[in-house]
Protein backbone atom coordinates (compact mmCIF):
# COMPACT_ATOMS: atom_id res chain seq x y z
CA UNK A 1 0.00 0.00 0.00
CA UNK A 2 1.21 3.44 -0.81
CA UNK A 3 1.17 6.07 1.83
CA UNK A 4 0.86 9.61 0.66
CA UNK A 5 3.47 11.67 2.45
CA UNK A 6 3.20 15.34 1.89
CA UNK A 7 6.44 17.28 2.02
CA UNK A 8 6.68 19.79 4.85
CA UNK A 9 5.47 23.12 3.55
CA UNK A 10 7.11 26.49 3.95
CA UNK A 11 5.14 28.90 6.14
CA UNK A 12 5.10 31.66 3.50
CA UNK A 13 4.83 31.80 -0.25
CA UNK A 14 7.97 31.78 -2.35
CA UNK A 15 7.17 35.31 -3.47
CA UNK A 16 7.03 36.46 0.14
CA UNK A 17 10.29 34.72 0.97
CA UNK A 18 11.97 36.25 -2.09
CA UNK A 19 10.76 39.68 -1.07
CA UNK A 20 12.83 39.32 2.10
CA UNK A 21 16.03 39.25 0.02
CA UNK A 22 16.72 42.73 -1.39
CA UNK A 23 19.51 41.47 -3.67
CA UNK A 24 17.11 39.21 -5.56
CA UNK A 25 15.53 42.29 -7.14
CA UNK A 26 18.89 43.21 -8.61
CA UNK A 27 19.24 43.28 -12.38
CA UNK A 28 22.25 41.80 -14.14
CA UNK A 29 22.68 42.57 -17.84
CA UNK A 30 19.20 44.13 -17.72
CA UNK A 31 17.57 40.94 -16.49
CA UNK A 32 16.53 39.89 -12.99
CA UNK A 33 19.27 37.78 -11.44
CA UNK A 34 18.77 34.03 -11.11
CA UNK A 35 21.17 33.34 -8.27
CA UNK A 36 22.17 29.67 -8.37
CA UNK A 37 25.53 29.92 -6.63
CA UNK A 38 24.26 29.34 -3.12
CA UNK A 39 26.86 26.67 -2.48
CA UNK A 40 29.37 29.50 -2.86
CA UNK A 41 27.52 31.84 -0.57
CA UNK A 42 23.85 32.38 0.13
CA UNK A 43 22.12 35.74 0.05
CA UNK A 44 20.99 37.37 3.26
CA UNK A 45 17.42 38.10 4.28
CA UNK A 46 16.32 41.41 5.80
CA UNK A 47 16.25 39.77 9.23
CA UNK A 48 20.03 39.32 9.00
CA UNK A 49 20.80 42.62 7.26
CA UNK A 50 18.77 44.56 9.81
CA UNK A 51 20.31 42.73 12.76
CA UNK A 52 23.82 43.51 11.51
CA UNK A 53 22.89 47.13 10.93
CA UNK A 54 21.16 47.49 14.29
CA UNK A 55 24.07 45.94 16.15
CA UNK A 56 26.57 48.26 14.51
CA UNK A 57 24.37 51.31 14.99
CA UNK A 58 23.30 50.73 18.57
CA UNK A 59 25.25 48.06 20.44
CA UNK A 60 28.74 47.87 19.00
CA UNK A 61 31.53 47.40 21.56
CA UNK A 62 34.16 44.81 22.31
CA UNK A 63 33.05 41.77 24.27
CA UNK A 64 34.20 40.28 27.58
CA UNK A 65 36.19 43.40 28.42
CA UNK A 66 34.52 46.62 29.49
CA UNK A 67 31.99 46.99 32.24
CA UNK A 68 30.27 49.80 30.43
CA UNK A 69 26.77 49.45 29.09
CA UNK A 70 27.61 48.93 25.45
CA UNK A 71 30.19 46.27 26.21
CA UNK A 72 27.75 44.45 28.42
CA UNK A 73 25.13 44.65 25.72
CA UNK A 74 27.52 43.41 23.02
CA UNK A 75 28.67 40.58 25.28
CA UNK A 76 25.10 39.58 26.01
CA UNK A 77 24.28 39.55 22.29
CA UNK A 78 27.45 37.65 21.37
CA UNK A 79 26.91 35.01 24.05
CA UNK A 80 23.23 34.98 23.14
CA UNK A 81 24.29 34.13 19.60
CA UNK A 82 26.25 31.19 20.99
CA UNK A 83 23.16 30.05 22.88
CA UNK A 84 21.07 30.30 19.71
CA UNK A 85 23.56 28.25 17.70
CA UNK A 86 23.84 25.69 20.52
CA UNK A 87 20.08 25.29 20.71
CA UNK A 88 19.88 25.01 16.93
CA UNK A 89 22.22 22.01 16.82
CA UNK A 90 21.23 20.47 20.14
CA UNK A 91 24.53 21.25 21.84
CA UNK A 92 25.69 22.79 25.09
CA UNK A 93 26.74 26.41 24.83
CA UNK A 94 30.28 25.69 25.92
CA UNK A 95 30.65 23.23 23.06
CA UNK A 96 30.15 25.98 20.49
CA UNK A 97 33.28 27.83 19.36
CA UNK A 98 33.01 30.76 17.00
CA UNK A 99 35.60 30.64 14.23
CA UNK A 100 35.97 32.65 11.05
CA UNK A 101 34.47 29.92 8.81
CA UNK A 102 34.57 26.14 8.39
CA UNK A 103 38.18 26.35 7.28
CA UNK A 104 38.93 28.02 10.61
CA UNK A 105 37.01 25.31 12.47
CA UNK A 106 38.86 22.44 10.78
CA UNK A 107 42.24 24.09 11.15
CA UNK A 108 41.47 24.56 14.82
CA UNK A 109 40.87 20.84 15.30
CA UNK A 110 43.88 19.87 13.17
CA UNK A 111 46.00 22.35 15.12
CA UNK A 112 44.83 21.91 18.68
CA UNK A 113 43.58 18.31 18.76
CA UNK A 114 45.75 17.01 15.93
CA UNK A 115 49.10 18.23 17.15
CA UNK A 116 48.48 16.69 20.56
CA UNK A 117 47.06 13.40 19.35
CA UNK A 118 48.55 12.55 15.97
CA UNK A 119 52.17 11.48 15.89
CA UNK A 120 54.68 9.73 13.68
CA UNK A 121 53.22 6.65 12.02
CA UNK A 122 49.64 7.53 12.94
CA UNK A 123 46.96 7.86 10.29
CA UNK A 124 44.27 10.38 9.46
CA UNK A 125 41.65 9.70 6.78
CA UNK A 126 39.63 11.86 4.42
CA UNK A 127 37.38 11.03 1.48
CA UNK A 128 37.84 11.73 -2.21
CA UNK A 129 34.88 14.09 -2.18
CA UNK A 130 36.30 16.52 0.37
CA UNK A 131 36.64 20.22 -0.21
CA UNK A 132 40.24 21.41 0.10
CA UNK A 133 39.33 22.89 3.48
CA UNK A 134 38.86 19.34 4.76
CA UNK A 135 42.01 18.05 3.08
CA UNK A 136 44.77 20.59 3.39
CA UNK A 137 44.67 21.01 7.21
CA UNK A 138 45.03 17.22 7.54
CA UNK A 139 47.76 17.10 4.93
CA UNK A 140 49.68 19.78 6.84
CA UNK A 141 49.14 17.97 10.12
CA UNK A 142 50.24 14.63 8.66
CA UNK A 143 53.33 16.18 7.14
CA UNK A 144 54.28 17.88 10.38
CA UNK A 145 53.60 14.82 12.53
CA UNK A 146 55.06 12.25 10.15
CA UNK A 147 51.61 10.68 9.90
CA UNK A 148 49.87 9.14 6.89
CA UNK A 149 46.87 10.62 5.11
CA UNK A 150 44.49 7.97 3.78
CA UNK A 151 41.79 8.48 1.15
CA UNK A 152 38.40 6.80 1.24
CA UNK A 153 37.24 6.19 -2.35
CA UNK A 154 33.90 7.13 -3.76
CA UNK A 155 31.68 5.15 -6.09
CA UNK A 156 30.89 6.16 -9.67
CA UNK A 157 27.56 7.59 -8.59
CA UNK A 158 29.26 9.84 -6.07
CA UNK A 159 28.74 8.04 -2.79
CA UNK A 160 31.27 6.96 -0.21
CA UNK A 161 32.52 3.49 -1.12
CA UNK A 162 31.60 1.36 1.88
CA UNK A 163 34.33 -1.23 1.23
CA UNK A 164 36.96 1.45 0.97
CA UNK A 165 35.64 3.08 4.14
CA UNK A 166 35.83 -0.23 6.00
CA UNK A 167 39.33 -0.92 4.70
CA UNK A 168 40.50 2.57 5.61
CA UNK A 169 39.06 2.32 9.12
CA UNK A 170 40.70 -1.07 9.55
CA UNK A 171 44.06 0.64 9.28
CA UNK A 172 43.19 2.44 12.51
CA UNK A 173 43.14 6.17 11.74
CA UNK A 174 43.04 8.54 14.67
CA UNK A 175 40.43 10.60 12.91
CA UNK A 176 38.18 10.45 9.87
CA UNK A 177 37.19 13.75 8.24
CA UNK A 178 34.16 13.74 5.98
CA UNK A 179 31.72 16.19 4.41
CA UNK A 180 28.10 15.94 5.49
CA UNK A 181 26.98 17.16 2.06
CA UNK A 182 29.40 17.19 -0.88
CA UNK A 183 29.87 20.69 -2.31
CA UNK A 184 30.20 19.24 -5.80
CA UNK A 185 28.04 16.11 -5.95
CA UNK A 186 25.27 17.08 -3.56
CA UNK A 187 25.59 13.68 -1.88
CA UNK A 188 24.23 13.59 1.66
CA UNK A 189 26.53 11.25 3.52
CA UNK A 190 25.02 8.98 6.21
CA UNK A 191 26.82 10.59 9.13
CA UNK A 192 25.24 8.56 11.99
CA UNK A 193 26.28 5.32 10.30
CA UNK A 194 29.76 6.64 9.47
CA UNK A 195 30.13 7.80 13.08
CA UNK A 196 29.32 4.32 14.36
CA UNK A 197 31.82 2.72 12.01
CA UNK A 198 34.50 5.26 12.88
CA UNK A 199 33.96 4.84 16.60
CA UNK A 200 33.96 1.05 16.34
CA UNK A 201 37.36 1.39 14.72
CA UNK A 202 38.57 3.73 17.45
CA UNK A 203 38.63 6.83 15.24
CA UNK A 204 37.14 10.22 15.94
CA UNK A 205 34.86 11.73 13.31
CA UNK A 206 35.03 15.32 12.12
CA UNK A 207 32.23 16.48 9.85
CA UNK A 208 32.44 19.40 7.44
CA UNK A 209 28.90 20.74 7.51
CA UNK A 210 29.42 23.77 5.27
CA UNK A 211 26.86 22.64 2.70
CA UNK A 212 24.66 20.70 5.10
CA UNK A 213 23.87 23.44 7.62
CA UNK A 214 21.74 25.49 5.19
CA UNK A 215 19.86 22.39 4.05
CA UNK A 216 19.41 19.95 6.89
CA UNK A 217 18.14 19.93 10.42
CA UNK A 218 21.21 19.28 12.57
CA UNK A 219 21.27 17.51 15.90
CA UNK A 220 24.75 16.71 17.14
CA UNK A 221 23.51 13.87 19.34
CA UNK A 222 21.74 12.17 16.43
CA UNK A 223 24.69 12.71 14.12
CA UNK A 224 27.09 11.16 16.60
CA UNK A 225 30.19 12.95 15.32
CA UNK A 226 32.95 14.29 17.54
CA UNK A 227 33.52 17.58 15.75
CA UNK A 228 31.18 19.41 13.41
CA UNK A 229 31.94 22.64 11.57
CA UNK A 230 29.81 25.01 9.55
CA UNK A 231 29.93 28.54 8.25
CA UNK A 232 27.63 31.53 8.57
CA UNK A 233 27.57 32.84 5.04
CA UNK A 234 26.20 29.70 3.42
CA UNK A 235 23.43 29.67 6.04
CA UNK A 236 21.98 33.05 4.99
CA UNK A 237 24.27 34.74 7.53
CA UNK A 238 27.33 36.97 7.33
CA UNK A 239 30.79 36.07 6.09
CA UNK A 240 33.59 36.02 8.65
CA UNK A 241 31.92 33.76 11.19
CA UNK A 242 31.82 30.01 11.42
CA UNK A 243 31.11 27.45 14.10
CA UNK A 244 33.06 24.58 15.50
CA UNK A 245 31.07 22.22 17.65
CA UNK A 246 33.11 19.70 19.60
CA UNK A 247 32.19 17.13 22.20
CA UNK A 248 32.78 18.83 25.53
CA UNK A 249 35.28 16.36 26.94
CA UNK A 250 37.34 16.58 23.75
CA UNK A 251 37.36 20.37 23.73
CA UNK A 252 38.27 20.44 27.41
CA UNK A 253 41.24 18.15 26.83
CA UNK A 254 42.50 20.27 23.97
CA UNK A 255 45.17 22.90 24.40
CA UNK A 256 44.87 26.25 22.68
CA UNK A 257 45.13 26.82 18.95
CA UNK A 258 45.93 30.49 18.56
CA UNK A 259 47.34 32.63 21.35
CA UNK A 260 46.06 36.07 22.26
CA UNK A 261 43.62 37.96 24.38
CA UNK A 262 40.51 36.31 25.80
CA UNK A 263 41.87 32.76 25.59
CA UNK A 264 43.93 32.90 28.79
CA UNK A 265 43.07 32.42 32.42
CA UNK A 266 46.16 34.09 33.79
CA UNK A 267 49.41 35.31 32.28
CA UNK A 268 52.59 35.82 34.29
CA UNK A 269 56.17 36.04 33.09
CA UNK A 270 56.65 32.43 34.09
CA UNK A 271 53.47 30.63 33.16
CA UNK A 272 50.22 31.03 31.32
CA UNK A 273 47.04 29.15 32.11
CA UNK A 274 44.27 28.76 29.58
CA UNK A 275 40.73 29.97 29.77
CA UNK A 276 37.91 27.45 29.90
CA UNK A 277 36.26 26.33 26.70
CA UNK A 278 35.06 27.82 24.44
CA UNK A 279 36.99 31.05 25.24
CA UNK A 280 40.25 29.05 25.05
CA UNK A 281 39.75 28.80 21.29
CA UNK A 282 38.64 32.35 20.64
CA UNK A 283 41.84 34.36 20.77
CA UNK A 284 41.51 38.06 20.11
CA UNK A 285 38.42 40.06 19.33
CA UNK A 286 35.95 37.64 17.80
CA UNK A 287 33.60 38.35 14.86
CA UNK A 288 31.02 39.95 17.15
CA UNK A 289 28.54 41.53 14.76
CA UNK A 290 28.90 38.52 12.48
CA UNK A 291 28.06 36.06 15.27
CA UNK A 292 25.01 38.15 16.17
CA UNK A 293 24.07 38.18 12.48
CA UNK A 294 24.53 34.42 12.29
CA UNK A 295 22.15 33.96 15.20
CA UNK A 296 19.59 36.06 13.30
CA UNK A 297 20.08 33.77 10.30
CA UNK A 298 19.62 30.69 12.46
CA UNK A 299 16.43 32.13 13.95
CA UNK A 300 15.21 33.02 10.48
CA UNK A 301 15.84 29.59 9.02
CA UNK A 302 14.37 27.86 12.09
CA UNK A 303 11.22 29.91 11.75
CA UNK A 304 11.04 28.87 8.11
CA UNK A 305 11.74 25.26 9.08
CA UNK A 306 14.67 23.37 7.61
CA UNK A 307 12.46 20.42 6.69
CA UNK A 308 10.44 22.72 4.48
CA UNK A 309 13.60 24.30 3.05
CA UNK A 310 15.01 20.90 2.21
CA UNK A 311 11.72 19.70 0.72
CA UNK A 312 11.55 22.79 -1.51
CA UNK A 313 15.14 22.38 -2.66
CA UNK A 314 14.61 18.66 -3.28
CA UNK A 315 11.59 19.41 -5.42
CA UNK A 316 13.63 21.94 -7.41
CA UNK A 317 16.52 19.49 -7.74
CA UNK A 318 14.23 16.77 -9.10
CA UNK A 319 12.78 19.26 -11.57
CA UNK A 320 16.25 20.46 -12.56
CA UNK A 321 17.51 16.89 -13.08
CA UNK A 322 14.50 16.20 -15.29
CA UNK A 323 15.08 19.33 -17.37
CA UNK A 324 18.87 18.94 -17.54
CA UNK A 325 18.26 15.58 -19.21
CA UNK A 326 16.75 17.54 -22.12
CA UNK A 327 20.07 19.24 -22.85
CA UNK A 328 22.06 17.18 -25.38
CA UNK A 329 25.58 16.27 -24.29
CA UNK A 330 24.99 17.16 -20.67
CA UNK A 331 26.25 14.86 -17.93
CA UNK A 332 25.27 15.38 -14.28
CA UNK A 333 27.58 14.10 -11.56
CA UNK A 334 26.48 12.69 -8.24
CA UNK A 335 23.75 10.36 -7.03
CA UNK A 336 20.39 10.02 -8.80
CA UNK A 337 17.35 11.72 -7.24
CA UNK A 338 16.65 10.31 -3.81
CA UNK A 339 16.97 10.78 -0.09
CA UNK A 340 20.72 11.22 -0.20
CA UNK A 341 20.70 14.00 -2.81
CA UNK A 342 20.78 17.68 -1.83
CA UNK A 343 20.19 20.69 -4.05
CA UNK A 344 23.67 20.90 -5.55
CA UNK A 345 24.07 19.96 -9.21
CA UNK A 346 27.42 19.71 -10.95
CA UNK A 347 27.51 18.95 -14.60
CA UNK A 348 29.59 18.90 -17.71
CA UNK A 349 28.37 20.08 -21.11
CA UNK A 350 30.15 18.22 -23.86
CA UNK A 351 32.06 20.56 -26.14
CA UNK A 352 31.79 23.60 -23.89
CA UNK A 353 34.20 24.16 -21.02
CA UNK A 354 32.72 24.97 -17.60
CA UNK A 355 34.15 28.49 -17.71
CA UNK A 356 32.47 29.19 -21.02
CA UNK A 357 29.20 27.70 -19.79
CA UNK A 358 29.32 30.02 -16.81
CA UNK A 359 30.20 33.01 -18.99
CA UNK A 360 27.24 32.38 -21.28
CA UNK A 361 24.87 31.71 -18.37
CA UNK A 362 25.94 35.03 -16.89
CA UNK A 363 24.68 36.77 -20.00
CA UNK A 364 21.30 35.30 -19.11
CA UNK A 365 21.82 36.65 -15.58
CA UNK A 366 22.07 33.09 -14.29
CA UNK A 367 24.82 32.93 -11.64
CA UNK A 368 26.51 29.53 -11.23
CA UNK A 369 29.95 28.41 -10.16
CA UNK A 370 32.47 27.03 -12.63
CA UNK A 371 35.78 25.45 -11.79
CA UNK A 372 37.22 22.74 -9.62
CA UNK A 373 35.18 23.81 -6.58
CA UNK A 374 38.22 23.45 -4.33
CA UNK A 375 37.91 19.70 -4.80
CA UNK A 376 40.70 18.79 -7.20
CA UNK A 377 41.02 15.21 -5.97
CA UNK A 378 37.34 14.73 -6.73
CA UNK A 379 37.75 16.35 -10.17
CA UNK A 380 40.49 13.83 -10.90
CA UNK A 381 38.25 11.02 -9.71
CA UNK A 382 35.46 12.26 -12.00
CA UNK A 383 37.93 12.62 -14.85
CA UNK A 384 37.21 16.28 -15.50
CA UNK A 385 39.23 19.46 -15.09
CA UNK A 386 36.24 21.51 -14.02
CA UNK A 387 32.47 21.37 -13.73
CA UNK A 388 29.64 23.85 -13.74
CA UNK A 389 27.60 23.86 -10.54
CA UNK A 390 24.11 25.12 -9.85
CA UNK A 391 23.25 25.10 -6.15
CA UNK A 392 19.86 25.98 -4.74
CA UNK A 393 18.58 27.93 -1.78
CA UNK A 394 15.10 28.26 -0.37
CA UNK A 395 14.34 31.29 -2.55
CA UNK A 396 15.01 29.64 -5.91
CA UNK A 397 12.19 28.93 -8.33
CA UNK A 398 11.30 26.61 -11.18
CA UNK A 399 11.38 29.59 -13.48
CA UNK A 400 15.04 30.08 -12.56
CA UNK A 401 15.71 26.43 -13.40
CA UNK A 402 14.06 27.06 -16.78
CA UNK A 403 16.37 30.02 -17.33
CA UNK A 404 19.34 27.77 -16.50
CA UNK A 405 18.19 25.32 -19.17
CA UNK A 406 17.64 28.10 -21.73
CA UNK A 407 21.13 29.38 -21.00
CA UNK A 408 22.63 25.93 -21.47
CA UNK A 409 20.85 25.51 -24.80
CA UNK A 410 22.18 28.93 -25.80
CA UNK A 411 25.71 27.82 -24.87
CA UNK A 412 25.32 24.96 -27.31
CA UNK A 413 24.14 27.40 -29.98
CA UNK A 414 27.06 29.76 -29.37
CA UNK A 415 29.47 26.85 -29.65
CA UNK A 416 27.68 25.68 -32.79
CA UNK A 417 26.89 22.27 -31.36
Amino acid at each position, binding site marked *: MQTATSAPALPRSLAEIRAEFPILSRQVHEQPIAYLDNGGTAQKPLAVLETLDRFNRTSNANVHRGVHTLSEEATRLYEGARATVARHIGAEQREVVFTRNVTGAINLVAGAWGRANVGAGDRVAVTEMEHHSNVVPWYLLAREAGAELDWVSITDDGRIDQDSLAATLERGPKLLAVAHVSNVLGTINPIPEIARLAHDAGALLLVDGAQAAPKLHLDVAELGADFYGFTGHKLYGPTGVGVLWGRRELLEEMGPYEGGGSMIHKVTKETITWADVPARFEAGTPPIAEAVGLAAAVDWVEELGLDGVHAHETELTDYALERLAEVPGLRVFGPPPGDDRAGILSFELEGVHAHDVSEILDRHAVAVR*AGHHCAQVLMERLGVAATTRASFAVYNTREEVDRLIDGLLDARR*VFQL
Partner: protein
Amino acid sequence: MDQLYREQILEHYKRPHNFGPLEDFDLEFEDSNPFCGDEQHVRIKLSDDDRVAEVRFEGSGCAISTAATSLLSDELEGLSREELLRLDKDFVLELLGIEISATRMKCALLGLKVVKGAGLGQPADWEDEGEEGDPAEFQSSGI
Protein backbone atom coordinates in the same frame (compact mmCIF):
# COMPACT_ATOMS: atom_id res chain seq x y z
CA MET B 1 27.49 37.65 -33.82
CA ASP B 2 28.96 36.82 -30.48
CA GLN B 3 31.87 39.13 -29.64
CA LEU B 4 33.68 36.85 -27.20
CA TYR B 5 32.93 33.55 -28.89
CA ARG B 6 33.39 34.74 -32.44
CA GLU B 7 34.19 32.39 -35.28
CA GLN B 8 37.98 32.59 -35.03
CA ILE B 9 38.00 31.81 -31.29
CA LEU B 10 35.66 28.85 -31.71
CA GLU B 11 37.68 27.59 -34.64
CA HIS B 12 40.88 27.61 -32.59
CA TYR B 13 39.02 26.03 -29.64
CA LYS B 14 37.60 23.19 -31.66
CA ARG B 15 40.64 22.64 -33.85
CA PRO B 16 43.60 24.10 -32.00
CA HIS B 17 46.78 24.57 -34.02
CA ASN B 18 49.96 22.80 -32.97
CA PHE B 19 48.00 20.59 -30.60
CA GLY B 20 49.28 17.22 -29.51
CA PRO B 21 52.41 15.51 -28.27
CA LEU B 22 55.93 16.19 -29.51
CA GLU B 23 58.35 13.28 -29.18
CA ASP B 24 61.56 15.15 -29.82
CA PHE B 25 61.80 18.42 -27.89
CA ASP B 26 64.30 20.63 -26.08
CA LEU B 27 62.07 22.71 -23.86
CA GLU B 28 58.88 21.82 -22.06
CA PHE B 29 56.70 23.19 -19.33
CA GLU B 30 53.37 22.48 -17.70
CA ASP B 31 51.28 24.84 -15.63
CA SER B 32 47.71 25.29 -14.53
CA ASN B 33 45.15 27.97 -13.89
CA PRO B 34 44.59 27.93 -10.12
CA PHE B 35 41.00 29.17 -10.53
CA CYS B 36 39.69 26.34 -12.65
CA GLY B 37 42.45 23.72 -12.63
CA ASP B 38 42.93 23.89 -16.40
CA GLU B 39 46.33 22.56 -17.39
CA GLN B 40 48.50 23.19 -20.40
CA HIS B 41 51.68 21.44 -21.36
CA VAL B 42 53.94 22.89 -24.02
CA ARG B 43 56.89 21.28 -25.78
CA ILE B 44 59.33 23.13 -28.00
CA LYS B 45 61.97 21.83 -30.41
CA LEU B 46 64.83 24.24 -31.03
CA SER B 47 66.81 24.56 -34.27
CA ASP B 48 70.59 24.45 -34.45
CA ASP B 49 70.76 28.20 -33.91
CA ASP B 50 68.59 27.90 -30.80
CA ARG B 51 65.41 29.21 -32.34
CA VAL B 52 61.96 27.71 -32.05
CA ALA B 53 61.60 25.08 -34.77
CA GLU B 54 58.44 23.37 -33.61
CA VAL B 55 55.83 23.87 -30.88
CA ARG B 56 53.15 21.52 -29.62
CA PHE B 57 50.80 21.97 -26.72
CA GLU B 58 48.41 19.70 -24.88
CA GLY B 59 45.90 20.08 -22.12
CA SER B 60 42.29 20.84 -21.40
CA GLY B 61 40.96 24.31 -21.24
CA CYS B 62 38.16 26.68 -22.00
CA ALA B 63 37.62 28.34 -25.36
CA ILE B 64 39.62 31.38 -24.34
CA SER B 65 42.68 29.56 -23.00
CA THR B 66 42.76 27.02 -25.82
CA ALA B 67 42.32 29.65 -28.54
CA ALA B 68 44.89 31.94 -26.94
CA THR B 69 47.53 29.21 -26.82
CA SER B 70 46.65 28.01 -30.30
CA LEU B 71 46.99 31.53 -31.72
CA LEU B 72 50.20 32.09 -29.76
CA SER B 73 51.69 28.80 -30.96
CA ASP B 74 51.40 29.99 -34.56
CA GLU B 75 53.65 32.95 -33.78
CA LEU B 76 56.55 31.20 -32.12
CA GLU B 77 58.48 29.61 -34.96
CA GLY B 78 61.85 31.27 -35.53
CA LEU B 79 61.89 33.10 -32.20
CA SER B 80 64.98 32.92 -30.04
CA ARG B 81 64.60 32.08 -26.39
CA GLU B 82 65.13 35.76 -25.50
CA GLU B 83 62.42 36.80 -27.93
CA LEU B 84 60.14 34.18 -26.43
CA LEU B 85 60.61 35.69 -23.00
CA ARG B 86 59.89 39.18 -24.28
CA LEU B 87 56.39 38.21 -25.45
CA ASP B 88 53.83 39.92 -23.27
CA LYS B 89 50.19 40.14 -22.32
CA ASP B 90 49.36 42.72 -24.98
CA PHE B 91 50.76 40.47 -27.68
CA VAL B 92 48.38 37.67 -26.68
CA LEU B 93 45.40 39.98 -26.24
CA GLU B 94 46.01 41.43 -29.68
CA LEU B 95 46.12 37.95 -31.18
CA LEU B 96 42.81 37.15 -29.50
CA GLY B 97 41.35 40.45 -30.66
CA ILE B 98 38.51 40.32 -28.16
CA GLU B 99 37.89 42.04 -24.90
CA ILE B 100 38.92 39.89 -21.96
CA SER B 101 37.36 40.57 -18.58
CA ALA B 102 39.40 40.39 -15.37
CA THR B 103 37.85 37.05 -14.45
CA ARG B 104 38.97 35.50 -17.74
CA MET B 105 42.43 37.11 -17.89
CA LYS B 106 44.17 34.03 -16.50
CA CYS B 107 42.46 31.94 -19.18
CA ALA B 108 43.90 34.22 -21.84
CA LEU B 109 47.38 34.23 -20.33
CA LEU B 110 47.89 30.59 -19.33
CA GLY B 111 49.50 29.71 -22.66
CA LEU B 112 51.87 32.66 -22.49
CA LYS B 113 52.84 31.66 -18.96
CA VAL B 114 53.54 28.08 -20.04
CA VAL B 115 55.52 29.12 -23.13
CA LYS B 116 57.64 31.50 -21.08
CA GLY B 117 58.01 28.82 -18.41
CA ALA B 118 59.45 26.55 -21.09
CA GLY B 119 61.87 29.30 -22.09
CA LEU B 120 62.86 29.98 -18.51
CA GLY B 121 62.89 26.40 -17.28
CA GLN B 122 60.88 27.51 -14.27
CA PRO B 123 57.44 29.02 -13.63
CA ALA B 124 56.95 32.40 -15.26
CA ASP B 125 54.83 35.08 -13.66
CA TRP B 126 51.20 35.66 -14.44
CA GLU B 127 51.04 38.92 -16.28
CA ASP B 128 47.57 39.92 -15.26
CA GLU B 129 47.31 43.09 -13.29
CA GLY B 130 46.88 43.04 -9.56
CA GLU B 131 48.68 39.74 -9.27
CA GLU B 132 51.83 39.14 -7.35
CA GLY B 133 54.92 39.21 -9.47
CA ASP B 134 55.31 42.29 -11.56
CA PRO B 135 56.58 41.49 -15.08
CA ALA B 136 59.16 44.20 -14.38
CA GLU B 137 60.81 41.76 -12.00
CA PHE B 138 61.72 39.65 -14.98
CA GLN B 139 63.72 42.41 -16.51
CA SER B 140 65.44 43.32 -13.28
CA SER B 141 66.49 39.71 -12.83
CA GLY B 142 68.38 39.98 -16.08
CA ILE B 143 66.02 38.22 -18.44
